């Protein structure tokens, strides 16, 4: 039950880069993937341009996969290959590999389009293949079919915390003996409906720039993408040719029960989530070497996180380098928590935390930087805090044998 959880592979596809290398490189350079979008009538988003699934998924058997399914299946292929499990499946004698996928909206575009086609043409003319994509667990189901993932398969919807809660769910599956290898992470796609929805909430930055923690921040930039970590038990990881990359330590979560779409400024839930994660990792706040924050440029959300960070870290906060990568890859919702976990992993590996894109010098008491900052220490804390009241926090470190 208390077995160690190893991260043995990773897949990333985001506006900031396709594949870990490109993602890491762009992160390091401090660039932002935000740009006015032709697809969305000039609204500034961080989108994946010219998505081409072929290099990872081939040219056959992907027709029925919608955007979310494609993103997730691509990230899955990357992570499987990275872990050295790309050719293995239970038909060839390998263990059943699982997939746990966090998302906020699922394939909203597929759902809305299917309903629209019924309205426009009549129920007799709707495409049954499209119906299969109207269930929120469709991306996880499609990715499982594509890669023969017959193990624990689940979809987790916990708002902006989904990308970390999915990791926790998968880790528990490993600890409880239901699986020995599970891909865990999240996916979110940008579509007409979601961009409209974002705009309608008033959360978007009119300037099209996400300025985490800055006094003049004015909102978020919507993003999309998928990230998956291959999680394995220590025993299963021992069979890989390469040592594991990371170890998952303590996880914490807390629901504010305050609102479905307004951050709870009191920050109690956010503090509590962080405290739980630290406690379960058996470390004190000052042992955290770096923090990957959930801050997105949201007026209220960033303030909530800042308050919570101060409450948890006290005087140590000023000494812990922080990165707010949503400034680079946008508010990628269901994928965000996992993308932030990848940033944390990269930071520990390089022993330096990347710059926060567009950082202009103002971030209250939080130590952001426009350049990479060296870190010393083995623990990274990742936050995924939501305006839906779900707050999650995770501590990781590099794998030590």
């Amino acid at each position, binding site marked *: *039950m208390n077995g160690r959880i190893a991260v043995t592979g990773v897949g990333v596809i985001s506006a900031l880069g396709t594949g870990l290398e490109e993602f890491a490189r762009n992160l390091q350079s401090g660039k932002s993937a935000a740009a006015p979008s032709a697809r969305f009538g000039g609204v500034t988003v961080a989108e994946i341009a010219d998505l081409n699934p072929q290099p990872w998924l081939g040219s056959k058997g992907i027709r*029925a996969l919608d955007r979310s399914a494609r993103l997730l299946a691509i990230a899955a292929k990357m992570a499987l290959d990275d872990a050295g499990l790309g050719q293995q499946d239970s038909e060839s004698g390998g263990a*059943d590999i699982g997939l746990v996928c966090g998302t*906020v*909206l*699922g394939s*909203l575009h597929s*759902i*809305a389009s*299917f*309903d629209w086609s019924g*309205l*426009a043409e*009549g*129920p007799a003319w*709707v*495409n*049954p293949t499209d*119906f299969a*994509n*109207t*269930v*929120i*667990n*469709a991306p*996880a*189901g*499609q990715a*499982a*079919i594509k890669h*023969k*993932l*017959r*193990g*624990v*398969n689940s*979809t*987790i*919807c*916990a*708002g902006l915390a*989904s990308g970390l809660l999915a990791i926790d*769910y998968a880790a528990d599956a490993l600890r*409880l*003996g*239901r699986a020995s290898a599970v891909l865990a992470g999240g996916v979110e796609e940008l579509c007409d*409906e979601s961009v*409209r*929805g974002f705009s*309608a*909430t008033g959360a978007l930055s009119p300037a099209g720039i996400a300025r985490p923690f800055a006094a003049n921040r004015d909102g978020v930039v919507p993003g999309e993408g998928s990230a998956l970590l291959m999680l394995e038990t220590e025993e299963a990881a021992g069979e890989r040719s390469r040592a594991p990359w990371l170890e998952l330590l303590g996880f914490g*979560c*807390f*629901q504010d*029960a305050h609102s*479905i*779409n307004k951050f709870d400024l009191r920050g109690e839930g956010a503090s509590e989530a962080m405290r739980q994660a630290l406690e379960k990792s058996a470390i004190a706040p000052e042992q955290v070497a770096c923090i990957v924050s959930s801050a997105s440029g949201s007026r209220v959300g960033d303030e909530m996180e800042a308050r919570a960070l101060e409450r948890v870290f006290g005087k140590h906060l000023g000494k812990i380098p922080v990165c707010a990568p949503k400034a680079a890859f946008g508010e990628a919702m269901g994928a965000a928590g996992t993308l932030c976990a990848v940033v944390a992993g990269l930071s520990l590996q390089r022993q330096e935390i990347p710059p926060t894109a567009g950082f202009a010098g103002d971030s209250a008491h939080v130590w952001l930087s426009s350049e990479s900052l060296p870190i010393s220490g083995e623990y990274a804390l990742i936050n995924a805090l939501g305006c*839906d*009241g*779900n707050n999650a926090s995770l501590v990781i470190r590099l794998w030590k044998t």
Partner: protein
Amino acid sequence: MTRVVVTGIGVVTPIGSGRETFWNGLLGGVSGIRRVTSFDTSAYRVHNGAEVLGFDAQPYLRRLTAAMIGRTSQLAVAAGRMALFDAGLEAEQLDGRRTGVSIGTTSGEPLYVEAYNNIRKVDGADAVPDEMMARYPCHVIPVHIAMELGIHGPCLTIPTACAAGNYAIGYGFDLIRTGRADMMLSGGADAFSRITYMGFARLGAIAPDLCQPFDKDRKGMVPGEGAAILLLERLDKAQERNATIYAEVRGLGVSCDAHHMTAPHPSGEGAMRAMTAAMKESNIAREEVDYISAHGTGTITNDRVESLAVSALFGSRAARIPMSSIKSMLGHTMGAASAMEAAACCLALSTGWVPPTINLEKPDPECGLDYVPNEARRIYPRIVLNNAYAFGGNNASLCLARHED
């Protein structure tokens, strides 16, 4: 690990709301399948559904306003409050930090998508009211329960479609047995939706009149709606407060077919793996299973493949294990289905009765098991399996046991 028991049952169903009405209805073979009223089905060749008629959530809400939350949330919050009440608890008695919520669903709040499109068709997408967008994402369903009841533990939606209820209950079970929570409100909810109806109708999957699982002449499933929530609790705490204990949750087994989005693997192997995993986790032998609550949707394929899986797994004993489908009465309530079925399993374990499969006139010889045709039966089961199979190949089997003091 800590043992987990069910101490409260809250249900809003096509045959009525509340544990007693639900259970009496199931044992009495009451059907909730009727002509659809919530939208116009004249463009379809089928017209039946299992709707929750005359449902008013407001009496169950003290902090939230029914009109400001989606129908699925309304059903879920009402069921949540009913479950607490059934357990003899007030929300104020909960330790919010040690309580969580997990809800399964298929569609979340689809009525907002429908409304979006309705408005878009007439006035264009810009005319869609802003607040609709915020209420759509399915994670708001358990958040509404948390807001209503003051709950702060892990709070999430597991939208694994027609098997979601089992997944959500399994999650609640895990959180309590690993010590992360002392209580969980876990179950499932789905609202009647033209999106769902349209899809199943286009697949030719909807029966024109009755839902007849395992019958030779079965013609399909009947979409439904509703919510079912179980209050899961640590055994020691339940005993401390002298709670009525309906059943013990023993284990969850899941698998993924990874074969087809809407059809099961024809060998039933995914179903077999899920049942096997559930029994292994529950530390029970096949011989101990006394009753199976079937997925039993009433489609040709599901009922045949499911029966094949049970036969293959239980061998010569299979035909002696009563296996009924309450979808024959409730229709297929999607994300709520396996939660309603779990509730029925709890009541079977605590009362000794198992509900029938109604409308079973000519058992299909290709299915060949004991489906408890038409009449409830008192068999005093001790170990039951609740099976559910979903789009995307998600299979889940929940194992429940009679609680003996």
